[in-house]
């Protein structure tokens, strides 16, 4: 029996160690290979993180959904991440030491109907199967808002619309085999599905709040931020740099995103698709707190949490604002010095 003791001890102690190891000069960055996470894709591709956080070991890790990123965060395996408002709010409500320090993107998600499904408006979703990346994620909540507006309800809430969690990459196959009738997916998946002959219902603005809602935010582990303010500042500088690059040079950003996506997913996204997808996503580091609060209300209405988080504690934009104030200096950096043409 004694030989088991070390194992048991390890099982007990390891989680605590992994929580404690969120310090030191290593930063672990999480994101998804989606267009709404383009600032991370561009920052990695252009080496912004490395340039702005010198002497820091940078580990980047891509996740399929907010669920898996949130789990990694809970396990102390991620220090900074780009994530949708849904998982960020739920994590905060459950007491995870997380703080929103910047925005990344807004809008950039569409409801696409399978060709032949006969869906031309949100009302036509009655009795249909609609895919979202995962239950309780940003698009799931948006879909529930759309359904409520159209006077519909999810099957599990006593209505007749079946919400199916499905990885965006699998939607195309599910459309071909007619397993789902529509999908609310982030870009570039929406543009990709459209390119395959499926039809977008409405546009990114008709999803919610006239398109003024966050799709990806920057979250940081509060413990990490307290211990490593300089690293977090460096991350934000790189983040702002990437957003400025995307907004100023969409074509070059498209190339960088395409290259990053190819390295991560081994899928070559068509340039026209990417162009369309970029056009429908807005990249900004600002956080629309009113939109976040409204999102939290939707989350409550969907029953995914029982209370709203304390937004004053959850959102901390002091560092972002300080950087924005000194932005003039950053902008003055010659573009060639940043490796840009």
């Amino acid at each position, binding site marked *: 029996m004694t030989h088991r003791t070390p194992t048991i001890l390890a099982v*007990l102690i390891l*989680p*605590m160690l992994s*929580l404690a190891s969120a310090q030191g000069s290593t930063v672990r960055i999480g994101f998804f290979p989606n267009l709404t996470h383009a600032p991370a894709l561009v920052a990695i591709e252009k080496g912004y993180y490395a340039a702005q956080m010198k002497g820091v070991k940078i580990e980047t890790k891509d996740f399929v959904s*907010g*669920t898996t990123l*949130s*789990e990694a965060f*809970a*396990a102390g395996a991620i220090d900074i991440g780009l994530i949708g408002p849904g*998982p960020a709010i*739920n*994590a905060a*409500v*459950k*007491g*995870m*030491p997380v703080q929103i320090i910047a925005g990344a993107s807004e809008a950039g998600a569409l409801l696409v109907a399978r060709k032949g499904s006969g869906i031309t408006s949100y009302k036509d979703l009655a009795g249909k*199967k609609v895919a979202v990346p*995962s*239950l*309780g*994620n940003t698009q799931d909540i948006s879909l529930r808002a759309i359904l409520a507006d159209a006077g519909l309800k999810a*099957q*599990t*809430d006593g209505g007749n619309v079946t*919400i*199916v*969690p*499905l990885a965006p990459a699998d939607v195309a196959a*599910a459309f071909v*085999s*007619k*397993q*789902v009738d529509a999908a609310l997916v982030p870009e570039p998946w929406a543009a990709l599905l459209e390119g395959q002959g499926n039809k977008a219902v409405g546009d990114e603005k008709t999803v919610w709040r006239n398109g003024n809602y966050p799709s990806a935010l920057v979250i940081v582990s509060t413990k990490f931020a307290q211990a490593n303010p300089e690293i977090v500042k460096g991350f934000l500088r790189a983040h702002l740099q990437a957003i400025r690059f995307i907004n100023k040079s969409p074509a070059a950003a498209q190339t960088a995103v395409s290259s990053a996506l190819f390295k991560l997913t081994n899928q070559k996204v068509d340039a026209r698709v990417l162009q369309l997808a970029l056009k429908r996503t807005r990249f900004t580091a600002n956080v629309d707190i009113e939109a976040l609060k409204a999102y939290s209300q939707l989350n*409550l*209405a*969907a*029953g*995914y*949490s*029982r209370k709203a988080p304390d937004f004053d504690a959850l959102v901390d934009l002091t560092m972002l604002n300080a950087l924005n104030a000194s932005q003039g200096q950053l902008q003055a950096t010659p573009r060639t010095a940043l490796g840009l043409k």
Partner: protein
Amino acid sequence: MTSLTPVSAPVRPRNLTPLWQVLGLLIIVGVWWLITDVLKLWPPYVFPSPKAVWEEFSYGLWGSGPQDGKLLSSVGSSLRRVALGYVIAVALGSAVGLLMSLWRPLRDTLGAYLQGLQSVPSIAFVPFAILFLGLNERAVMFVVIIEGFIPVALAVSGAVLNVPPAWRTAGRTLGASHFSLVTRVLLPAALPNIVTGLRTAWSFAWRALIGAELLTANPGLGRLLEVGRNTSNMALVIATIIIVGVVGGLFDLLIRALETRMRRDYGLEVQV
């Protein structure tokens, strides 16, 4: 093999098992409370306290929120699904198992494959079921049926083959036709072992159901697990695991009671 050692003690000792079980449960909850609420070894979003899990139970049973009060209906949909799948699995498994026991070529081929298939975890069938049948109830049913079917077929075949040869000879000598030999001698004689197989099949089917529901998010306990996971609600995850265990265990007890009673009637079990 059932022990046939004569029992010497004429007086039945008082059954203390339920007492120990309650005590054990109290100790588990106590230790759980100690490491979560008192020692706080883990943050609550990693390992919630018994209180948080109890809250999830209460929300599920009599809560009034949008996702609340769904516990019973989730248990209901899962049970309805598994019951249908189980009945089909038992019917199919019995028929195939009987054929296997009566016809050697089938036993040597299909029987051998089923033994191999039995080692495949149910979750491995889910991707195939989804692609083949779609993201729907049928995919879940398929996985439940295949997981329940295999142990039933193997148990029926094994049980019929294990009927003492003398009984067959006796049946034939007394003039039983092939049909009545099967229905009146072999099957009744094999029944206790068949019931053991049915119990195994139940636990296989139940496990397969939860796994398949988790991946397809059909209404049910698997979906509760998925929602808990997606909303960082570890208390809901643990509450659901407990329900899955309790419901699965209760049905197992039910079938076990039937099994014990049957084995006793057949003189295979000695009451201690």
